[in-house]
C-alpha cells in the first residue's frame, strides 16, 4: 500500500517513518483514511459506436470546488476520454496525449486509433508509478471499429463493452450490470448512460450536479454538454428585497455632529518653486 506523505523524493522508497507508524498502531492510533476520488464516469459500446458519460462535480475534500466542470476531455476528433482522480493530473495527461496524437496524425496522414491513445496514456502513467493520479475511461471509433478502455493510475488497462470509474462507479455499475445488452441503439445507449450517471449523482457524495454525455460514431462525434440538469438551483428572488422605512422599530437615537479639525491660517508662505 502506498502511503501519501509529503516526503521529498530521494529515489526509491523511504522507510524512515515505519518504526514510528508501528508504534502509533500499537498505541491504538488509526491510519488516516484515503481521500476518495469524487466522480462518476462511465462508457459503453452500442451498435454504431461508443457513448461516454460523466458527472460535473469537482471536490476538494468535503467542499464542492466546481459545480459544473468538464470531465470529458478531447483526445482526437474521434476519441474522447473521461477523467477521474486529481483534476490537474487528468487535464495535464489528456492534453499531453492529445498533442502527441495530433503530431502523429500529421506524420502518418491518418486518423488516430484508440489503441494509440491507450498506449501513450498507459506508458506515461506507468513511468510515474501511480503518482499521476488519473483514472480514465477512454472511448472512440477508428478504422478498426468502436473501442472502450479503462486506464488505472498505475498504468494497467482493461478493454470492456461497458465501464465505470470513480467513487460513484459502484452505483453506476449496478445500473449497467442490470440493464446493459449488446446491440443497443443510440437513444437506448444515451438513456442508459444518463441513468448510470444519475445513480452516481444521487447516491454518491463525491458526484453531483449535471450529466455530460459524448456520443462517438464513425465519422461523427456529438459532445452533449449538460445533457441533463437534475439539480437545478433555486436562486433568491431577482426582484430583491424591499425594506420600507418604519418596518424596523427604533429603540433609541443619538446624534453626534462631526467637528471640523481643519484650521485655516491666512497669509502663509507661498510654496517654493
Amino acid at each position, binding site marked *: 500500500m502506498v502511503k501519501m506523505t509529503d516526503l521529498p523524493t530521494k529515489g526509491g522508497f523511504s522507510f524512515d517513518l515505519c518504526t514510528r507508524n508501528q508504534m502509533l498502531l500499537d498505541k491504538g492510533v488509526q491510519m488516516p483514511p484515503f481521500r476518495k476520488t469524487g466522480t462518476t464516469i462511465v462508457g459503453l459500446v452500442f451498435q454504431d459506436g461508443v457513448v461516454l458519460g460523466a458527472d460535473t462535480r469537482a471536490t476538494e475534500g468535503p467542499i464542492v470546488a466546481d459545480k459544473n466542470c468538464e470531465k470529458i476531455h478531447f483526445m482526437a476528433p474521434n476519441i474522447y476520454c473521461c477523467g477521474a482522480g486529481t483534476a490537474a493530473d487528468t487535464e495535464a495527461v489528456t*492534453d*499531453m496525449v492529445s*498533442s502527441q496524437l*495530433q*503530431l502523429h496524425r*500529421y*506524420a502518418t496522414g491518418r486518423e488516430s486509433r484508440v489503441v494509440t491513445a491507450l498506449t501513450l496514456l498507459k506508458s506515461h502513467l506507468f513511468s510515474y508509478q501511480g503518482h499521476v493520479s488519473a483514472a480514465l475511461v477512454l472511448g472512440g471509433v477508428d478504422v478498426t471499429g468502436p473501442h472502450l478502455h479503462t486506464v488505472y493510475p498505475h498504468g494497467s488497462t482493461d478493454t470492456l463493452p461497458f465501464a465505470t470509474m470513480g467513487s460513484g462507479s459502484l452505483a453506476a455499475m449496478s445500473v449497467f450490470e442490470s440493464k446493459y445488452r449488446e446491440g443497443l441503439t443510440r437513444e437506448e445507449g444515451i438513456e442508459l448512460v444518463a441513468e448510470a450517471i444519475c445513480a452516481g449523482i444521487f447516491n454518491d457524495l463525491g458526484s453531483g450536479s449535471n450529466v455530460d454525455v459524448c456520443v462517438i460514431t464513425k465519422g461523427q462525434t456529438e459532445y452533449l454538454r449538460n445533457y441533463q440538469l437534475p439539480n437545478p438551483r433555486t436562486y433568491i428572488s431577482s426582484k430583491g428585497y424591499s425594506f420600507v422605512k418604519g418596518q424596523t422599530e427604533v429603540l433609541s437615537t443619538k446624534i453626534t455632529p462631526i467637528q471640523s479639525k481643519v484650521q485655516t491660517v491666512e497669509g502663509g508662505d507661498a510654496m517654493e518653486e
Partner: protein
Amino acid sequence: MGDSQYSFSLTTFSPSGKLVQIEHALQAVGSGQTSLGIKAANGVVVATEKKLPSILVDETSVQKIQLMTPNIGVVYSGMGPDSRVLVRKSRKQAQQYFRLYKEPIPITQLVRETAAVMQEFTQSGGVRPFGVSLLIAGYDDNGPQLYQVDPSGSYFSWKASAMGKNVSNAKTFLEKRYTEDMELEDAIHTAILTLKEGFEGQISGKNIEIGIIGADRKFRVLSSSEIDDYLAEVE
C-alpha cells in the same frame, strides 16, 4: 574571388561581409523546382511543380505541400529532406505553443520560430544551413497571410511570391497579374497560369500540386482531379 577562401566555413564572415555558405544555400534553392504563393482577399493559394525523377515513381506517395497546423500550410523550393526536418520541428513548436497558451499559434509566431531554427543552423558549429526556402500560408485572426522564409532565417510577408528555377519570370508575371482585391478562385487560376509559364512538358493534375486555405481556416491540398478541373477552366 577573395571570398573563396571563406566559402567553406559557415561561421566565418568573408571580407565583403557575406556568409558565403548562405549564398550557396540560396543557389540550392534557386535550382529547385518552382513554387509560388498568392495572397487573395479571402484566402491564400500555394502551388508547386511536382516533377518526379522518373515515370516509375508512384506520384501518389509524394506530397510536397504539407500542413503545419489545421490552418497553416507550407510549400518549399530546394532540398526536400531539409524541408521535412523543418516541418517536423515547426509542427512540434505549434503543439507546444498550444499546450502553453491554449491558443492556436498565430502565423507570425510560427514563422518567427521556424526562421529562428533556420538561423540557428547558420551560427552553430558542425552544421550547414537548410537548403530550402519555405512559403508559409495560413489564415488566422489577422486574416490571410503569406510568408517566405530563406535559408538565412530572414522572413518577409508577401502579397505574392515565387521561388526556385523560374523565379524571375514567375515574379514578373505575378507583378503584372496581381490585384489587391483578388478572390481565392482568381488567385488559383493565376497561380496555375504562372506555373504554366515556365513549365517544361504537359502540365496536368499529376505534375503540379496546389494547396489552398479560405475563410473556413482549413488548409487543404487539392486532389489531382480537382487540379485537372481548374486546368480545364484556365484553357
